């Protein structure tokens, strides 16, 4: 009796200790974000203007949609490098559908609007391309047993090539108002992409926390062998995750083309890096099984604020790339450190 209560007291003490560190690790990105915003606000008062903040959020939203999908992928110990290319490809397909074919691609303005198939079909096409591409990659990963890194590196090249081939290298521009609303519109004072991002973030949070699918994702990423021996179909979960990622890339491509009123084959270059950085900074472990949508949202905003603040302070885009690169490495180093902490416990 006394023995067990001693055990429990010991365990509780250990828990408290871990919790302090865990709490810090959990809120570190949020604290970092607030500090960063304060610094930028002091350096450049324009930063805090509502115009700029909504601008940041609108930019962040596209990355955010991708980062939500990427969170699922990384939770299962996977990675998807193809999303930037897939986003461009899906955006072009959506644009072509909206314009009623490639012939009228250069037609800008009111005359061309009547010719297209409208934005609903364009959206479906973009999502279809994303889902099909995700399924293809998921199939290669689960059936052909090619590591996700390699499959999606191949996808990164192949989808970019497909986008260039499809559009002949040029942009497809000039959409009707219904299409543009998805990227440029407002509901009240809130930009539409921000609303889309918010809704999907909420849905993803619910899925991860309260559904079977979410539980399976954490289990597969936490210990694939134990998941298999617990009767989970690891391949099926993996496939589903890449399909979901493809869906989000398709949606991102559609929203981006709507925002820019143009789709082009070189859209989304290096997005995969920014997105992976956002997810990892948000506390999702590249070793799988650990991470939350809340963290990903914070991580995405953090990266967005950082980039925006750098632009406002006239830091060149070359330097921005260097900073993103350094941040990725530091975030993973922190993750590894946290992992070794956990192991010691």
């Amino acid at each position, binding site marked *: 009796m006394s*023995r*067990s209560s001693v*055990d*429990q007291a010991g*365990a*509780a003490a*250990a*828990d408290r200790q*871990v919790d302090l560190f865990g709490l810090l690790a959990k809120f570190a990105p949020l604290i970092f974000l607030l500090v960063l915003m304060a610094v930028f606000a002091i350096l450049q008062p324009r930063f805090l203007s509502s115009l700029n903040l909504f601008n940041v959020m609108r930019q962040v939203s596209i990355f955010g949609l991708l980062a939500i999908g990427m969170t699922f992928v990384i939770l299962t110990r996977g990675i998807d490098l193809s999303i930037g290319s897939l986003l461009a490809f899906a955006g072009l397909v959506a644009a072509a559908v909206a314009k009623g074919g490639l012939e009228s691609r250069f037609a800008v303005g009111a005359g061309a609007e009547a010719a297209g198939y409208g934005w609903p079909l364009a959206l479906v096409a973009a999502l279809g391309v994303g889902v099909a591409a995700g399924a293809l990659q998921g199939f290669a990963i689960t059936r052909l047993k090619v590591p996700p890194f390699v499959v999606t590196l191949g996808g990164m090249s192949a989808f970019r090539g497909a986008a260039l081939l499809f559009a002949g290298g040029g942009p497809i521009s000039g959409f009707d108002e219904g299409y543009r609303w998805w990227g440029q519109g407002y509901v009240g004072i809130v930009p539409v992409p921000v609303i889309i991002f918010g809704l999907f973030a909420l849905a993803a949070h619910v899925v991860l926390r*309260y*559904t*079977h*699918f979410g*539980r*399976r994702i*954490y*289990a597969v990423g*936490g*210990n694939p*062998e*134990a*998941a*298999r*021996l*617990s*009767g*989970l*179909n690891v391949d099926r979960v993996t496939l589903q995750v890449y399909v979901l990622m493809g869906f989000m890339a398709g949606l991102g491509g559609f929203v981006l083309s709507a925002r820019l009123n143009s789709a082009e084959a070189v859209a989304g270059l290096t997005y995969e890096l920014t997105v992976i950085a956002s997810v990892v900074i948000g506390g999702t*472990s590249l070793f799988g*099984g*650990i991470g939350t949508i809340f963290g990903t949202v914070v991580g995405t905003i953090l990266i967005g604020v950082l980039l925006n603040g750098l632009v406002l302070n006239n830091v060149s885009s070359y330097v921005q790339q260097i900073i993103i690169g350094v941040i990725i490495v530091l975030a993973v180093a922190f993750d590894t450190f946290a992992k070794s902490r*956990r192991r010691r*416990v």
Partner: protein
Amino acid sequence: MPAPLLRMAGIAKSFPGVQALTDVTFEVAAGEVHALLGENGAGKSTLLKILAGAQSPDAGTITLAGQPISLPSPQAAQALGIITIYQEFNLIPTLSIAENVFIGREPARFGLVDWRRMNAEAKGIIAQVGLELDPRRLVSDLSVAEQQMVEIARALSMQSRLIIMDEPTSALSEVEVLRLFELIRALKVRGIAIIFVTHRLEEVMQLCDAVTVLRDGRLVGRAPIGELSVDGLIRMMVGREVERLFAQRPRVEAGALALEVEGLASTGDPMDQHATSLHDIHLTVRRGEILGLAGLVGAGRTELARAIFGADPIAGGRIKVAGEVLTLRSPEDAIAAGIGLVPEDRKQQALFLSLAVRNNLSIAALGRLAGRFGFLDSAAEDRLIKRYGERLSIKMASPEQAIANLSGGNQQKVVLARWLALEPKVLIVDEPTRGIDVAAKAEVHQLLFELAESGIAIIAISSELPEVMTISDRIVTMREGRITGELPAAEASEERLMALMTLRQAA
């Protein structure tokens, strides 16, 4: 008696929570083939790791040819001529024979590898062990026996005085074993001492000059082989008074057949080169019965468990649960048929260490906790966790506590609860009490008794013979992927089991 080539005296070594070796003295003479014997966990591997420089002793002295030596690293041991040939070979499969023989000491000219000389010398070296192969061939293309010969050849080329062979015969055919023995006798003549570790006692009688037996980390005895019989060896290995640590459970009348395995064959985990193949396995377990599976490391007990559970593909035979033939493509199928498995390696194969107790406990039962639209019925989950948390008296702060922070015993109870939540017909427990303390061990045993009483058929695998004898109603022994015997627990003794586990002819 001449001064021994090697003398280890007063060797002690402890690991957190375990005293692996206590005051062990071990001597080997030059030109002697010396068997080192003991049960699983007797301390053989630790002693050999110390000798190989892979671990350092807490106390004790080591002398080689009268000179005190220290072995701070494997390199130091090799430099002194102490070469270990591990059961899982130390060769690099993607390199050639010659590259493997000379790895780290390639002959060079002007700072570059002298390939011609290296290949020529390697050819000579492997010829000494009777290998007529092109030294440029890749090791991955060689048979297991040939790879072993390459290992021995490499040992010879390093001016070895003492070669340690850890279960060298376990992967060889009978003809290859005879070849190996010839080679070992040739090495003897050259004055090289051999330490020979094996589970096959007949080989000890046939090949070795002397034997040292360890038990529970202590030296039991040392004797020339001429003074011993196989029975005597078994007695030395088992030795201890067979104490029944825990209360026997009342033997209940066994019920209907729950599991039938007929002519099962498999090649084990396709990803694991060292998996034991199973041959023609027949066994049955009844409702309410606990069947013990005993065997030494590599006997194929775990492979059998995994095959029944659908975790490894089976090559032949049938598995029936409650009279129905199963088609097992994955553990998912086995679970659907009512089979559960508590795997051998809790951390690697059972637990999700990054997750909470809740997720760990209910993972297999998710299908039963279905709410609407793919949501979990969290009220049902709470009830499930409460029920099994209480029934197994799992000590946890809350279901949200990280499983990594529970004790080994409580972690194991969570894994058991995971299966109980599915109300299985057959439960296989592989080393159910490994790494948990004595009190928790008794609790797990008690729990297994209760489960059996409730009508579940249980297969219990344990490397500890007293444990197998305590918890089982009936014991089946295995060796090298085959079943070698069967005893009612009441008639089992450690001596009889050990004989069935080690001898080719069932005693």
